[in-house]
């Protein structure tokens, strides 16, 4: 399995901090999620980190077994 991690308000929206998903292309992983959550995860301002490394862009990502993909919304101000 792979794992999705939701930070900040995305955790509230997902109803969970983490979710185990079947490995595969990101498009396919997101298609299995509730539509409003998938839309929020794809927001331009949400950064993605794969195994703790920020991704420059989300196109063409595929999750392998054991991968952790984190969705990082804009951080809070002062």
């Amino acid at each position, binding site marked *: 399995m792979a794992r999705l991690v939701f*930070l*900040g308000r995305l955790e509230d929206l997902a109803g969970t901090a983490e979710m185990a998903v079947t490995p595969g292309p990101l498009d396919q992983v997101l298609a299995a999620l509730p539509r409003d959550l998938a839309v929020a995860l794809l927001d331009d301002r949400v950064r993605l*980190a794969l*195994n703790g490394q920020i991704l420059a862009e989300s196109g063409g990502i595929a999750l392998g077994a054991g991968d952790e993909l*984190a969705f990082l919304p*804009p*951080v*809070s*101000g*002062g």
Partner: protein
Amino acid sequence: MVIDVRLADGPFDPAAELARFTAAVPAAGGIVSFLGKVRGDAGVLALEIRHYAPMTLPGFRALADTAARRWPLDGLLLLHRVGEMGPDAPIVLVAAASRHRRVAFAATDFVMDHLKGDSWLWKRERTAAGWRWIEPRDEDHGDRARWG
């Protein structure tokens, strides 16, 4: 050169932390500190800070290293609370020690300016109206831009 960077998932005692830090930098003539805490009078009943372990602490360490390369410091302390806390709770303690007073001020100020908008932290607060996420602030960009 003492660099002490930590996340605290429970309450911490700023006075004790600062005393320990000061004792570790005997060569420093000046120590500047910033303590940020939950205000006791602002109707905030609780503050929750969420973090992402694989990125938050490495991010803080990178910031501390940047400050340590930029100024001749004897030591730098960066301690940040995560989790849920109540009014008056300490949130963040940053301290810089140097032989030079102005250096200690600059390094502490620099770290705070970058912490406020660059850290992988998400905050929400609870008031009588319920929980509310704290949004990014445009001001944070201006704060960072001061340092070129």
